[in-house]
């Protein structure tokens, strides 16, 4: 099947080579980081995780959101997702690969990464995060490839795939739950020390992931002969609507607990993120951008008549995606470190090499996604012809 990705229009190849060029630039910057050390980034003794781990956290959500297609299709036999479900699975594969790469570029001693397996440590959430992420990657590769292969041959998928699919449905929420536990189990980080992190992560994942899929589906329809289906896209819109509402509701719960209890440690990060604290306010414009985009998206999404207009839906999906990318990729991770353990503020902003490396990782993800989608669409087009 892989050969489908080896023949394409000049536009396809231009896109592939553009991505390779970006990856190359990112790699050059990574070599610089490798020789200088992580001091080349904006991270510091006080803000020890930054843009990389933020991207990782956001992308685990994108990966988990594949289940929003798999579950209705396989458990509820929602046939309208039949043409879209492989796109969800392949998006999950690309997202998990990016997650692993973002962790890798964040390591101080990347050559020792195998120590996590050589010295397995079950009391560390990081160890379990590795287990669930690699497991999820494995499940999606097996399921996606087998089901697509069967479709190509025009036969139903082999019987053993069904139980594997059910496992992956249960597995998907776990990858994001375990990722939430990285944060919510740490004493002394008030902003993260809350039981709702996992729920909030899942809500934002199931809003941002399907948003991205809506955009991808619209792009695919525009550039290929393959149509994922108007109704399937509308159903995704509904999923985004409900989970975005849940996500905003969960943030509201956090704000109530912090400010009604009036406990300083619980309020400080929110004050820093949305109003500035002690004269520091670098993230305030970003956080308000995220909030305004969330409101705009919700206004567009909650009215069914507006949502049915695909251009409006596309705008709403983009707004949800950007809003949550800022919220999770910046606000959430950095908020845990600001103010620091001494009630002092050290601000953070990514440096140029850090951003170039991140863009490189995104380009690798896009390359994987492009190749996988090329294969999937090639097979679908062939099957329909």
């Amino acid at each position, binding site marked *: 099947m892989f050969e489908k990705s080896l023949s394409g229009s000049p536009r396809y190849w231009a896109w592939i080579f553009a991505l390779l060029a970006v990856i190359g630039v990112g790699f050059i910057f990574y070599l610089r980081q490798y020789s200088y*050390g*992580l001091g080349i980034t904006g991270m510091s003794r006080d803000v*020890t*995780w930054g843009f990389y781990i933020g991207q990782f956290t956001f992308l685990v959500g994108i990966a988990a959101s594949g289940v929003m297609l798999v579950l209705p299709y396989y458990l509820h036999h929602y046939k309208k997702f039949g043409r879209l479900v492989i796109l969800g699975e392949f998006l999950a594969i690309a997202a998990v690969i990016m997650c692993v790469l973002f962790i890798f570029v964040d390591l*101080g*001693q990347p050559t020792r990464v195998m*120590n996590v397996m050589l010295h397995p440590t079950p009391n560390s959430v990081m160890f379990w995060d590795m287990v669930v992420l690699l497991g999820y990657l494995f499940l999606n590769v097996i399921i996606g490839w087998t089901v697509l292969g069967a479709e190509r041959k025009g036969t139903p998928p082999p019987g053993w795939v069904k139980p594997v699919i059910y496992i992956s449905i249960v597995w998907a929420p776990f990858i994001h739950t375990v990722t939430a536990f990285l944060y919510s189990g740490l004493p*002394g980080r008030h902003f993260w020390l809350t039981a709702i992190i996992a729920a909030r992560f899942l809500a934002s994942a199931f809003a941002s992931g399907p948003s991205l899929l809506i955009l991808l589906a619209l792009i695919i329809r525009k550039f290929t002969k393959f149509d994922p289906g108007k109704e399937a896209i509308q159903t995704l819109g509904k999923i985004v609507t409900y989970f975005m509402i849940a996500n905003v509701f969960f943030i509201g719960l956090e704000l109530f607990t912090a400010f009604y209890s009036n406990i300083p440690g619980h309020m400080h990060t929110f004050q820093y993120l949305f109003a500035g604290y002690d004269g520091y306010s670098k993230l305030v414009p970003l956080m308000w951008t995220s909030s305004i985009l969330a409101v705009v998206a919700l206004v567009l999404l909650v009215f069914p008549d507006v949502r049915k207009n695909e251009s409006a839906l596309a705008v709403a999906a983009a707004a949800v995606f950007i809003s949550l990318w800022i919220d999770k990729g910046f606000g959430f991770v950095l908020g845990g470190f600001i103010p620091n353990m001494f009630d002092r503020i050290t601000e953070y902003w990514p440096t140029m090499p850090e951003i170039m490396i991140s863009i490189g990782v995104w380009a690798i993800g896009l390359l994987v996604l492009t190749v996988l989608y090329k294969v999937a669409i090639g097979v679908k087009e062939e099957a329909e012809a």
Partner: protein
Amino acid sequence: MIDRRQFLKIAGFTTMLGIGVMPVVSRISSRLEASQVFTDPNALTAKRWGFVVDMSKFRTDEDIKRVMDACHSIHNVPDFGNPKDEIKWIWPEKFKHAFPGQEDHFMSKEFVDKPFMVFCNHCESPACVRVCPTKATFKRKDGIVMMDMHRCIGCRFCMAGCPYGARSFNWRDPRGKDENGRPFIAKENPEFPTRTKGVVEKCTLCYERLAVGKKPACVEESNGGILFGDLDDPNSEIREIIRTRYTIRRKPDLGTKPSIYYLIGGGENV
């Protein structure tokens, strides 16, 4: 006759099995070797090491800096000259920063700004040890929360986990020099290693000195300002002080059970 498909299956399976079994075999063989090593009879030992820092002995930043320099110089702690890359094992921190949330308007300014000497608390339930994915940081039998720099992958999860900000990361090579050619480690102690870039470090309670029967460098340099002993021994000097005098610990409500006590309003009869 096996076909190509079966051959690949068998070959693949055998390789996986070999890779899986190898670490187990190598671990067993290294255990056998370890029987030839033991603890130095002169070593200082305890069930749970702890400090009492007598705040009456540390009045100014300079008192603390003297101890800090002693520690940093024998442990080859680099000075990068900026707070972003900073590495520190012991340092002064004002009361309001060392004990955030405990200061209030009516306290004297001197007390709110009084420098407290802070270092790794060698907690009994250390969060850093709980989160480390490689056991590079671990708790020893004598209560020391220790770093194995050989094993650290530099993920910095321990720095997110530690509620005391006790950990520093080598953002760049500590053996390097700044733009003016000043080496980050002014004078290397040839008896102790440096670190490499990309690993986390912190106070190790002078495990290398305890092993040969010496007290930690800070204790020795403090002229009686830091008392050192076994928290598990009810008859130890530090247990006597904690029983009879007023001591506080940093963030005890987090359940990490820090082993560093600060004696407030200490006095002559210590």
